[in-house]
């Protein structure tokens, strides 16, 4: 059974600074539920730009994006924030945990923001996610004190906490050594097998090869 969870139609985007530049040129894309997609391409081909458009963080574009049967193009800032909180999980290249908070608090935060469950239930779920990443022993540590690989695994746990429809990852292994890269590979593979939809931008051939589908981009167009 094929259910599209994300549909992008004729996306166009321009950069105006430092000079007029057509970054994305009529990009259309459909992502099925449970798919693990890698977007690849050279630097400047627009793959990261596409990811930020799809993730609703960037709203300055032409075209239509539909996620989970909701047209997100044209929604206001407040509605988009709520939508991201509920439906999208993020993993970034530089892991970006809040350094003053503990590991557990970082993981819990999107769920507290959503406010669907009480704190005790959220804490239990967060601990489950941390166990899945084998990070439960670090739950009480301040996030700022951890290594890059550890932080990235916690960021993945955080991305999963609200059971999002899509997980978006921008170069999740771009800043890690090979040992940690291997661990993150395995985690992504595992969560993909659990039925999560994942869209990731990557340079890493090995990483891309283990995904369901690879989207190649050249000069703002999808070539395959």
């Amino acid at each position, binding site marked *: 059974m094929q259910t599209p969870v994300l549909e992008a139609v004729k996306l166009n985007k321009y950069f105006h600074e430092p000079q007029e530049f057509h970054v994305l040129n009529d990009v259309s894309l459909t992502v099925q539920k449970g798919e693990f997609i890698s977007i690849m391409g050279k630097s400047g081909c627009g793959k990261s730009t596409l990811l930020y458009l799809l993730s609703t963080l960037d709203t300055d574009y032409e075209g239509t994006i539909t996620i989970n049967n909701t047209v997100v193009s044209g929604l206001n800032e407040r509605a988009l924030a*709520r939508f991201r909180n509920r439906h999208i999980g993020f993993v970034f290249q530089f892991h970006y945990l809040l350094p003053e908070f503990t590991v557990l608090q970082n993981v819990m935060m999107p769920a507290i*923001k959503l406010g669907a469950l009480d704190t005790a239930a959220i804490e239990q779920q967060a601990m489950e996610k941390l166990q899945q990443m084998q990070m439960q022993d670090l739950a009480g540590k301040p996030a700022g004190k951890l290594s890059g690989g550890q932080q990235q695994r916690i960021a993945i746990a955080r991305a999963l906490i609200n059971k999002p429809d899509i997980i978006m990852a921008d170069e999740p292994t771009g800043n890690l050594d090979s040992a940690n890269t291997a661990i993150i590979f395995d985690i992504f593979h595992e969560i993909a097998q659990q039925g999560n939809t994942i869209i990731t931008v990557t340079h890493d051939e090995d990483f891309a090869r283990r995904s369901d589908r690879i989207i190649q981009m050249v000069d703002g167009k999808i070539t395959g």
Partner: protein
Amino acid sequence: MSLGLNLNIARVQLLARKRQTVVAMLGVTFGIAMFILMISFMKGVNQFLQDLMMSTTADIRIYNKLNTDYSTSLAGRYFSDPAGKWIIVRHPKPKQVNLNIKNAPGIVNDLRKSDRILAVSPLLSSLVIFNYGPVQWAASVDGVDIMAEDKMFGLSAKMIAGRTDDLLRMDNGIIMGYKLAKDLNLAPGDLVTLTTQSGTQLRCRVVGLFKFGISTMDEFRAYINLASMQQLLGKDRDYITDIRIKLKDTREAKKLAAVYARKYGYTADDWEVVNASIKAGNTIRDTLTYVVSFTLLVVAGFGIYNIMNMVITNKLKDIAILKAQGFTGADIMQIFLSQSLIIGIAGGLLGLLLGFLLSFGMSRVPFPEDGYVSIKFFPVLFESQYYFFGMLFGILTTFLAGMLPALKAAKIDPVAILRG
């Protein structure tokens, strides 16, 4: 739900950089403490000067103002020229007038019935020459009802020799300022001769000395009984030039002065008119206080503005990640504005405490003794409204100072930061 989470984030971030938070807080603390100290002290000085002034000034003074308008003349009426166009008297000589208030005892009795009035004191005053042996000295002598005068100005408390009611017991007694007595080398019990401008004389016995702490009073003022004064000036027993009134509520003076002026047909001045210079001094000190306090708070505000701007620059990544997780611009603003406000409120409360301690300390510092001014400690007022305003200004300043950086934080584009 979101507010609680946002406040928690604000709290954690504040605690994570304690030193910076404390520095920002101390700025507000000192600003507000200085405001409290300055306003308490300045208001204390105002109060002290006003008390000093009120110790010699009646709330309302009713008197017969000398008419100095010589533009009309009886000559016109006499020669049938009512419009005064044809008969012009050049450089007329002032006519002999009595400056007394007609029916003064009636007015005094009428005033004493009012329940807004604390004391009414009739007065007949004149400049006289004091003769003691070969020494001659000019001073003003007030003929008064000494019991009413005591009620007006609390004379008993200012006596350093004798008692006010000795004046009633003694035929032709006189109470004078201690410096006047010193200048004339008089002591209680001595006889002194008063000579008026018209040459009439009266021998009085010194029964008491007073000290107001104001040299115009202590060196140039004496009291005798009203009847003695009337006798000295050769006037009848109803001859009174001034009626002075002490009110229960001083603030009513302006209003009531106008009422009495209309009712009795004489000029009535309230204390604010008589002491306009003191009022001006009060205004200047108040303005000074507000200007200095405002400057201090603005400096504290700039401190907060700077620190919050720096914090936000350091927290760009965190702001981006919060936005990606679903925090709105309004949430981000709440987080950073509440940090400013926490700094403002905590710093403000500390400032109130410090301000109180400084004011209290100041009110315990002995005032340098100089024999003129009767004050023991620096004058400081403790009024809850100063603390209320201090807190209000503190919160307002931090709110404004925190608003700009918080707005900037709310507008940050997360994509630009997350892409590195």
